[in-house]
């Protein structure tokens, strides 16, 4: 028996195994490709490499039909719809990443503290998230956006401050379970501090849940951005956004101008579909109960 037949222990970890599983799922890989495409598109747009003419106004060419020059036609101000839809991905992705990131940081922190310390801390956090949870999220988001006025920062905060609840609940339950486990007790025995036990010992062990939650909340955040912008509570007017384009389409459709709506919903559809498919595959890949090959 040679040593090489025994794979290194690291390669058998949950993460390595999940990655191997994912790579065998063509749909998941295509979805990942689509997501990366959007990320690349947003980065290139914001760096000013492609679609630099998204704000170029041409009053002589309003509502032009799709053509070779403008693949998805032009809007009321003669701006290229494709360029605006592509720039809309910056808004959506940034709201998705920043808003979701903020929600997860809040949810993880509060959930970890409640689950780990229990007692009064737990009571307080549970009371707080139950209270927030009783308010329908869209009302909460709308009222926050209403108070702070439309801007990208408002959207980050509105989404970050409302979407942490379900994540917090899951993290709390995991911490309740893990704090009694032997490895945590062991850490306690060798004198590890609370901080060390929470962040160095327990957190990495529940990280797969955070990742799955990230992709779930991300989809809701992107949709919320579109809804809020549609309602006029999203980004500032003039900033390209899919929600704003859909809002404009309400006026455009009776004129027979369908391309604005098609572009915005199409861009949104593929991003959300890709995220949902990838999310399913990821959940399955990270499921500890899945039989390992």
């Amino acid at each position, binding site marked *: 028996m040679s040593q090489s037949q025994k794979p290194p222990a690291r390669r058998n970890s949950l993460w390595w195994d999940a990655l191997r599983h994912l790579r065998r799922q063509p749909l998941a890989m295509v979805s990942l490709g689509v997501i990366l495409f959007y990320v690349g598109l947003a980065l290139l747009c914001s760096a000013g490499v492609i679609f630099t003419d998204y704000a170029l*106004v041409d*009053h002589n060419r*309003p509502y032009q039909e799709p053509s070779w020059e403008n693949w998805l036609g032009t809007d*009321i*101000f003669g701006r290229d719809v494709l360029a605006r839809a592509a720039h809309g991905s910056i808004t959506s992705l940034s709201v998705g990443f920043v808003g979701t990131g903020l929600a997860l940081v809040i949810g993880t922190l509060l959930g970890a503290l409640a689950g780990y310390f229990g007692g009064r801390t737990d009571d307080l956090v549970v009371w707080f998230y139950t209270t927030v949870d009783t308010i329908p999220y869209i009302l909460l988001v709308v009222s926050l956006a*209403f108070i702070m*006025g*439309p801007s990208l920062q408002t959207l980050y905060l509105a989404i970050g401050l409302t979407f942490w609840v379900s994540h917090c609940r899951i993290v709390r339950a995991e911490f309740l379970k893990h704090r009694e486990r032997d490895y945590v007790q062991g850490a306690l025995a060798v004198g590890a501090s609370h901080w060390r036990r929470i962040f160095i010992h327990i957190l990495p062990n529940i990280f797969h849940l955070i990742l799955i939650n990230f992709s779930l909340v991300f989809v809701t955040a992107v949709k919320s951005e579109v809804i809020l912008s549609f*309602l*006029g*509570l999203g980004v*500032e*007017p*003039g900033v390209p956004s899919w929600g*704003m384009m859909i*809002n*404009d389409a*309400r*006026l*455009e*459709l*009776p*004129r027979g101008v369908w391309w604005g709506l098609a572009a915005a919903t199409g861009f949104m559809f593929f991003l959300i579909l890709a995220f949902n498919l990838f999310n399913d595959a990821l959940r399955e890949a990270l499921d500890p109960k899945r039989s390992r090959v």
Partner: protein
Amino acid sequence: MIFCRRLLTFALGLSFVFGHLSCTRRVSDQDGTINTVVSANIKGLDPIFSSDVYTNAVVAQIYEPLLTYHYLKRPLTLQPLLAAEMPKVSEDGLTHTFKIKKGIQFQDNPAFPGGKGRELVAEDFIYSWKRLADPRNQSDGFWVFDGRIKGLNEWREAVLKEEADYDTPIAGLVAKDPYTLEIQLTRPYYQLHYVLAMTYTAPVPREAVERYKEEFINNPVGTGPYRFDSWVRNSRVTLVKNPNWREEFYPSEGEPEDRARGLLEDAGQALPFAERIVFHEIIEDQPRWLNFMRGNLDFVDIPKDNFESAVVGDSLSPQLAEKGIFLQVSTEPDVTYTAFNMKDPILGQNVNLRKAISLAYDTETLIERFYNGRAIVAHSPIPPGVDGYDPGFRNPYKEYNLEKAKEYLAKAGFPEGQGLPELEFSTISSPTARQMAEYFQQNMAQLGIRVRISSSSWPQFTNKIREGQAQIYGIAWLGDYPDAENFLQLLYGGNVSPGPNGSNFQNEEFDRLYERASRLPAGPERTRLYQQMRDIVVAQAPWVPGAHRQSYYVAHGWLKNFKRNSMIQDYFKYLRVDPKKRAELKAKL
């Protein structure tokens, strides 16, 4: 309150309203029912609350004021309605004596003994105007008399302290006999006759108010040609012909082209024609348009986004004309404008900056893009159709001239926009308003001026203006009456925020001229003063005047005598439906 009142029309025109979609229901084709539409929900049927155009559309058919406008003549001409003749005005302009028509009956109602309507007398006006003034009623129409009638404001205060009631006499309102009403003013007020043509000032019977109390708003009792029949909330209000209405006849003179347009065919015929009017409440543009196209509504104004399919060039599209539909264009006494807050440290002190902005704002493209070309460029606050409007007048800062704009910007101390902080443009959060704000932003970008758009709800927006917090904002004003005074008061120093002068423009010379003009009756001297005031506004540029909009109405061929003007409210009595033609044309739809 005048401020919110008229602006509401604009807001509802633009704003994104989630609404209940009601469907029209055909009542009967046999009796010449008129099916019409209002684009917002009706609030209630009491003249003192007829502040928005939608509610007023219904109320003005049930209640009648002393005066009204001639249906066909243009420019608008006042004529007696409940008054027997035009009032006698004393030399000093302070005493106005009205003779009231004899034999005018209130509509039959259980509030009267035996359910039979009684005769209208001068006392009814005094009672009704006290009701309008009563602060406990919180009418938003009191501005029409505020500070104008001797003793009325004092009565108002005394009522709050419970030191006066409806039987307390008022020095300025005297019923000399049952048919003579004398009004004493505190100072000359030549717009009095115009406000006496507004539904706010229509008489209501005291018996009915006292019987129904707060339910009076749902049990209207007027003197008008139509009386209330039923109201399905958020759906429709039905009015039926008042059988006891007095004799009144269709006018026999009008504008020269009225005869050719068939508007004088019914001259001398007894009014009203239609047996029934149904006001459908349909908030969204598309259902309103589709209901018209199916023949469920007799006339509508064309929604902006259906305009291109309905109108080709200046006339109706052949597809619609084939169905017997006709088009009617009316220029409304209205002005859209972009106002600068003169209290703002950057804009208020720098007339060259304001002129630069005005010169860089391309109104013609705006009209093309947002009004389908259905408007004319405004060169001053005074719109067509009112005294003081000069169609030949050109505002030198209203031409779209980027070179000149850049010169003024440099003169203002900000060459190429350098050193100028970002400006804030306030608007409401509806798609069209947002697009208009973006348009302003794009126009300013050409000059190197950076503009941030702040959009909010209609109440937040008006609050911001009232509190003097809006730096630049876009808004519109639809006149209450055909007098330039109603537009120039938007710039009068005595009306600064929270009053209707939201731009906080204060100019001694302007105010002096305004006060002088308000003491003058209509005539060349007053018109000259109006034009002097206009010139001051142009030179100081507290506004960038935008456009005077036109209304495009379409009506089906079975509707006769249709001639719309937004200031004529009691027009349903003139309309006639031809049931035979309706059946014939409806088959083609």
